[in-house]
């Protein structure tokens, strides 16, 4: 005569086995330093730090290639490290003749950074690869260590591609950038030194949109005194893509 039903026995054994194996697995498999610093293995930081180096760093190259370093230092590429283009080169600095880094002479290397991508920051020079002198190597016209434009960029879209693309398909497509921004030729030549101006007053919009403004009849008019209340126009309307279904 059994006290507990027979079928419970294998179940109890199994529950004990599962819990037991979980406990054993935890003691065996969970690393000792797990949880010391957070929900991860603390020793990991040390292991990563101990990995073999393959990059020499931005400054070592100057020891031997001082000419190139100097050229680059004053160029548009001053912020781009040598190894971003030439690849990891620690081995080269230790044995310059045995290991020679690649020099990326094709178009792809440059397009990695300069191909159009809407996520890049405003002002970063971007090109549409299919339209910018296709099939020709970039090096014919731009020196990699001192990239210059053969002539000043003609259009604001050269560096503000995303804004200009947006504007192009908006109600403001016919409005030139310079209607709202004062941007001199110097801004196009050296944008970080000579800044362009952003509108500060609602009058900029009022030039076209105020009731009595001297502008094309098709442009929708608003009452500048009441419309929008105490907010400035671009608190509500994105100027490069103005919408009214707010």
């Amino acid at each position, binding site marked *: 005569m059994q006290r507990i*039903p*027979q*079928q419970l*026995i294998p179940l109890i054994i199994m529950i004990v086995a599962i819990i037991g194996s979980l406990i054993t*697995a*935890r003691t065996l*498999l969970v690393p000792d330093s797990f949880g010391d610093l957070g929900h991860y293995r603390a020793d990991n930081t040390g292991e990563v730090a101990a990995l073999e180096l393959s990059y020499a760093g931005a400054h070592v190259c100057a020891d031997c290639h001082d000419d190139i370093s100097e050229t680059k230092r004053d160029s548009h590429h001053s912020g781009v490290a040598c190894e971003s283009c030439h690849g990891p080169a620690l081995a080269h600095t230790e044995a310059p003749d045995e290991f020679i880094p690649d020099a990326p002479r094709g178009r792809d290397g440059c397009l990695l950074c300069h191909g159009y991508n809407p996520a890049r920051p405003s002002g970063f020079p971007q090109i549409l690869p299919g339209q910018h002198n296709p099939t020709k190597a970039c090096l014919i016209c731009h020196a990699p260590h001192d990239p210059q434009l053969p002539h000043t960029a003609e259009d604001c879209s050269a560096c503000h591609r995303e804004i200009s693309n947006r504007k192009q*398909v908006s109600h403001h497509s016919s409005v030139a950038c310079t209607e709202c921004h004062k941007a001199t030729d110097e801004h196009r030549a050296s944008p970080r030194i000579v800044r362009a101006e952003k509108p500060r007053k609602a009058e900029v919009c009022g030039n076209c949109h105020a009731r009595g403004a001297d502008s094309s009849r098709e442009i929708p008019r608003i009452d500048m005194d009441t419309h929008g209340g105490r907010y400035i126009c671009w608190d509500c309307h994105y100027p490069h893509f103005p919408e009214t*279904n707010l």
Partner: protein
Amino acid sequence: METVIANIASAIPGTTGYIYPNEFELHWSLLIVIYPYLTGLVAGAFILASLERVFKVHEITPVYRLSLVTALAFLIVAPMPLLAHLGHPERNYEMFLTPNTSSAMAMFGFVYAWYLLGVLLLELWLDYRRDIVKWSNEKTGIARYFYKFSTLGATDISPKAIEFDEKASRFITIVGVPSAFLLHGYVGFIFGSVKANPWWSSVLMPIVFLFSAIVSGIALMILVYMISTMFRWKKMDMACLNKLASFLLYAMLVDFTLEALDFIHRLYESEESITILSEMISNRLFISLIVAQIILGSLAPLVGIIMAKMGKVPDEMKRMLYFISALLVQVGIFSTRWNVVIGGQLFSKSLRGLTVYKLELFGLEGLFMAITLLIAPVIILYILVKLFPPWMDKPELDVAAAKEAVAPAKETE
């Protein structure tokens, strides 16, 4: 000008308005649509089975075991889309070793394990034990050893032992119903708790998910029951089908009301997101929400079932209506999942623009993977049914004693 626009179109095809750069691509793909769809079927099938057990609805006895086996088949596949989506499936056990209690997604592993081991497998085993012992004596060859192993050494099938099995399995079902609620409510919770997404963020989400799960589970069982009975050359039990259809009808009414409530609530609240959401519904989700989910997936089957119930239609016609309705419900629920998962990523968080979802064909997150994952549970179900025949055909005369006559496995199959 034309060329410029053509260029923009090639850089960002299909998008309209303003969207942030990191929203061009959707991160939760078709696989994440499949995942709540499959878990929903599991929870629904289980809850249906519990109606028989807990609430003693004896009309649906013929699908009781079949529901449990179906739930198991789908539950085995349910986490696979997640594993495929995350990559590194071989690391999955790590979330059991180092539980991260502040992550709802990580805790799912435990919910899943509990539901699989603590509820479904246990209940099935207790329920099948008597048959397994019998088969282990009757069958020969490898099959004999397989069933012998499946008894786990518990060969006692005295009336007292069987009585214990019944009691235990009823108890497990009672625990199982909240577990099934947890399993699928949890999936809704994951979406509902994303504060930053106005399409998802809603306290009603877990409840809406739950009821749509029940709807899809019952509809699935109607399909599985009808198809399996057809292939076994048996007569369909109309009482059972009618009952299933009634449950489907009630569940759909509740589900539909809840979703309408959610919708009206959003309209009434009319937060700043409402403009972009209505634009999304009328442009991007028109086919999948208005047509597939509401018209084909909810209204049409509602009408179909009501017609079969109210009108004086012959059984033949009824079966036809049930079958088509259940099929449409599946289409509808799948669209529901699609609309939640994909819809939630189609509009920009700037609330100013819409993007598009580009489905890939091959690859780990592509269409073929999705189809494979949807077929896999059916194959598993077939194998399970072959190994453990779940049929509980009533002896044609004696309906009341149906419970005594727990299906003898038919050798003729």
